[in-house]
C-alpha cells in the first residue's frame, strides 16, 4: 500500500495556548492583571516585588506565585508583605499553566487587583510558555551586562516591558542603559522600559504607575468603564 500524506499545519502548543487564553480572559473578568516576571536567577524579581509592596502600602490587593526548582525561600521573603505561594518545579526549568492554576487555588479566596507570577530564573525555556499573563515583564540587572537582549532574543521578543534593575550599581559596572534598551528594541520595538533600584526605591514610582495604567486599560477593555478606585 502506498504512503498517505496527511497535511496538519497545526501549532504544537495550540492546546496549551488556548488554555492560557481562556485563563487570561477569566482573570480579566475578575479585574486581576496577571503579570509574569522573567529573568536570569538573581536579577532581583523578588526584590522588585518587595519594593512594589512597600510603595503601594496596601493600596492594591496583590498576590504572588513564585517558581523555583526547590525551597520556599522566596515565598518566605514575600510573606511579610503579601500572600505568596511557592511553586516548586522539582528540577523543571520553567512554569506551566497547570502549576499556576494550582498556586492560585492555594491563595486566599480574594479578588486580586494584581497577580504576579515570578517564573524560575531562566531566560530560555520560560519564553516559549504562555502562563495566561496579560503582561510579561523581563528584568535585566546591570551586573549581567548590557549585551544580553540580543543573546536571549526570544525572552525579550515576547515581553511587553523591560525593567533594568540594580541601577544603584551603575557606577561600579560597565553597563550602558541606552545600549541595553537599543539592543532589546531591535528585537521588540514596542518594549516599555523602567530603570529601578529596588533597594533604594528609585524608579519604583514609575514602575508602579506603569502597572496601574496597564490594569486600568485592561479593566476598560473588559468592563467598558474605569476601574473602581
Amino acid at each position, binding site marked *: *500500500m*502506498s*504512503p*498517505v*500524506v*496527511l*497535511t*496538519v*499545519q*497545526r*501549532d*504544537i*502548543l495550540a*492546546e*496549551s495556548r488556548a488554555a492560557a487564553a481562556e485563563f487570561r480572559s477569566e482573570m480579566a473578568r475578575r479585574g486581576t492583571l496577571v503579570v509574569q516576571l522573567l529573568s536570569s536567577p538573581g536579577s532581583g524579581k523578588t526584590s522588585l516585588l518587595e519594593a512594589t509592596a512597600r510603595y503601594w502600602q496596601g493600596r492594591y490587593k496583590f498576590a504572588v506565585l513564585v517558581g523555583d526548582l526547590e525551597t520556599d525561600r522566596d515565598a518566605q521573603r514575600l510573606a511579610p508583605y503579601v500572600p505568596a505561594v511557592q511553586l516548586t518545579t522539582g528540577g*523543571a*526549568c*520553567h512554569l506551566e499553566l497547570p502549576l499556576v492554576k494550582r498556586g492560585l487555588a492555594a491563595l486566599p479566596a480574594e479578588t486580586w487587583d494584581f497577580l504576579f507570577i515570578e517564573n524560575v530564573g531562566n531566560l*530560555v*525555556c520560560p*519564553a*516559549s*510558555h504562555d502562563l495566561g499573563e496579560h503582561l510579561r515583564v523581563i528584568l535585566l540587572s546591570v551586573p549581567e551586562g548590557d549585551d544580553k537582549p*540580543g543573546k536571549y*532574543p*526570544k525572552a525579550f*521578543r515576547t515581553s511587553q516591558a523591560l525593567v533594568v534593575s540594580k541601577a544603584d550599581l551603575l557606577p561600579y559596572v560597565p553597563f550602558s542603559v541606552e545600549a541595553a534598551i537599543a539592543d532589546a*528594541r*531591535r*528585537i*521588540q*520595538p514596542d518594549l516599555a522600559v523602567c530603570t529601578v533600584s529596588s533597594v533604594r526605591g528609585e524608579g519604583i514610582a514609575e514602575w508602579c504607575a506603569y502597572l496601574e495604567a496597564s490594569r486600568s486599560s485592561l479593566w476598560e477593555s473588559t468592563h467598558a468603564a474605569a476601574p473602581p478606585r
Partner: protein
Amino acid sequence: MHETGLVQSLLRQVSELANRQGASCVQEIEIEIGVLAGVEPLLVESAFARLVQGGDSFEKNNPAARLDLRSARLMMRSVPLGGVCRDCHREFNLPNLDLLCPSCGSRALRLTRGEAFRLLSITLNDAPQTAESPL
C-alpha cells in the same frame, strides 16, 4: 531544556491523528521550527530519537494505543523570520534577528513567520487511501 516535553506533545498529536486514520505505522513526521520558536532543533532530534525507542503510548486517554513510531523519520524545516512592514507594507524575509525592514528601515514590523513550532504533515504507510485532512 524543555524540548522533551514539546516532543512528547508532538508525539501525542501524531499518535492521535494516526489512530483516527486507522494507521499503525508512521513513516515521516514533518515539523516547522521557526528561528525564534525558542526550540533547539538538535535537542528536538535527540529527544525524538530517545522517546520513540520506548515504543510506549503517548496518549494519556488511550494508554493501550500502540502506534509504531520507531521507524518514523523526523523532517525539520527551519523557517526564517518574515512578515509585513507596517510602514511601507512590503513583505520581507529577515536574514537575522534584527527586526528592521529591509526596504525602508522601519522597526514597525508585523511578523507572520519564524516564531512557530508546528506540525506540518505526517506520512502514514498503511492507512486507507481515503484519508482526509483532520482540520
